[in-house]
């Protein structure tokens, strides 16, 4: 039950990504709001237990199970609203993400008790698909809708989802400061090219139309090159290939044509 009446209640599953130590590296906007954070960035770097209002033992138990077994199916939890301290009921589940075969973080799903998840939900690929959906919804609702045409919108969505996936991979493998270094690189490139965009907590925000496909490709290349420098070609390709499964063939073909993917 959601007793925090001033915040939206979750009406669908929401994702939260942690690194291997259980520190939050990304959280869906709607989940952040439901838990009482001012912004989605407010939870970054905090422990899973502290973000959900669970004891460190309870959160540690979930993370250990995910790390050791690869996944954890539904458990009932009582999260705590950050400001009102009201109790929030969720079902928590999670899967492990692996980089080079090693556990690098957990993909945690918080589900309203009345909602049932489809079968085959419990894998990192499915979470990346949902990440793409999340970005798609955000782009459609946000300022980037100024870009004309559905194809351009899908292309922009594709880039934003890739940037988010790279950010999560970098933060898990290199730590939070490496994630911030990616944002700094994007900021510098945007400044140099006079693009009205910024990247915060892995999310790309475009404040106006006018970023042409060549610009998108340059931005993508900057992020991919940096991710390869810090991690490796193998890890980056694996992550991005998994993300591609969330897009249809037509989008992938357009993305290839505009050099957003190789």
């Amino acid at each position, binding site marked *: 039950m959601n007793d925090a009446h001033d915040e939206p209640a979750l009406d669908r599953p929401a994702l939260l990504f942690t*690194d*291997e*130590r259980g*520190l939050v590296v990304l959280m869906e906007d709607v989940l952040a709001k439901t838990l009482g954070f001012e912004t989605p960035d407010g939870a970054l770097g905090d422990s899973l237990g502290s973000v959900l209002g669970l004891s460190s033992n309870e959160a540690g138990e979930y993370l250990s199970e995910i*790390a050791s077994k690869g996944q954890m199916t539904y458990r009932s939890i009582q999260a705590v609203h950050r400001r009102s301290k009201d109790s929030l009921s969720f079902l928590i589940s999670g899967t492990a993400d692996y*980089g*080079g*075969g*090693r*556990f*690098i973080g957990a993909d945690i799903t918080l589900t309203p008790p009345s909602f049932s998840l489809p079968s085959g939900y419990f894998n990192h690929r499915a979470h990346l698909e949902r990440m793409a959906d999340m970005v798609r919804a955000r782009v459609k609702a946000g300022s980037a809708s100024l870009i004309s045409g559905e194809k351009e919108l899908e292309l922009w969505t594709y880039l934003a989802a890739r940037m988010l996936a790279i950010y999560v991979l*970098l*933060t*898990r*493998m*290199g*730590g*939070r*400061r*490496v994630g*911030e*270094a990616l944002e*700094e*690189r994007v900021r510098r490139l945007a400044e140099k090219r006079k693009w009205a965009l910024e990247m915060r907590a892995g999310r790309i925000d475009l404040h106006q139309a006018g970023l042409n496909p060549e610009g998108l490709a340059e931005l993508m290349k900057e992020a991919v090159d*940096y991710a*390869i*420098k*810090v*991690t*490796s*070609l*193998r890890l980056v390709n694996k992550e991005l290939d998994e993300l591609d499964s969330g897009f249809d063939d037509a989008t992938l073909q357009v993305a290839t044509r505009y050099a957003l993917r190789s």
Partner: protein
Amino acid sequence: MSSAFQDRKNVTAAGIALAVWVLFTIAYLVAPLGDAGRPWISDGATLASSWSTAVLAFLLWKGYDPREPAKRIWLALMIGFALWSVGETIWAYYDILLGAEVPFPSIADLAWAVGYLPLWIALFMRYRSIGVRGGRGFWAALAVVGLIGVLVLRYILWPIVTYPGSERLIEKFLTVLYPVGDLILLLLAVMVSIALRGGRLSSAWQLIAAGMAVLGAADLLFVYADWNEIYITEGSPNLITFLADVPYVGAYLIIAVGEYVQARLEETV
């Protein structure tokens, strides 16, 4: 660093390294083959551990795509560790097969000294590739290593450099180069592990930095003991000889475990 040991194979590798080091230490102290056999044990363990760092660096280098910056970084590390291993091999040759006092400087010193350059370059390239700016951890590391450097310079190296004896310039240069070279390596390895702090990749570099720290301490003790003529090459070792020799092997083993952890992350091994 503890996260590296969530992987069973990493635990096994660390366990093997620890067992090798403990067995070596016992054999070094007990000398089951007599005092004449001690150099065989000491040099054998040093050779095995040093070459393991070069071989693991080779495997890592081989595993990367030529387009990746990591390929160049591990090439430089491989060259550096291979040169050091060549130095250890030449030293062992003098020590065991010729049975003579090892000349100073010798060709082994050339390999060790030249080996620092690719290692410095590799670690600097790795730090640059991460592209993370300073931060408090970086400046704290710089301050600690700087302080250690000043103390080493003042109390160990300065008396050697300014001693009005017959030491040739090249000997003084090498005596100073080893500890200073180790300190630079330590600083760079610490910078890399700080830049990656909190991420999965940091544990490998923390181990490599720890190995560099132990290596630096062992080198420093050797320089100090050798200069003061208390380093013993024949017969039962005294405490300072033990403290210079035994951690030296441990340092190579720690670096090798760090490389193994990195190789596991990259699925090279």
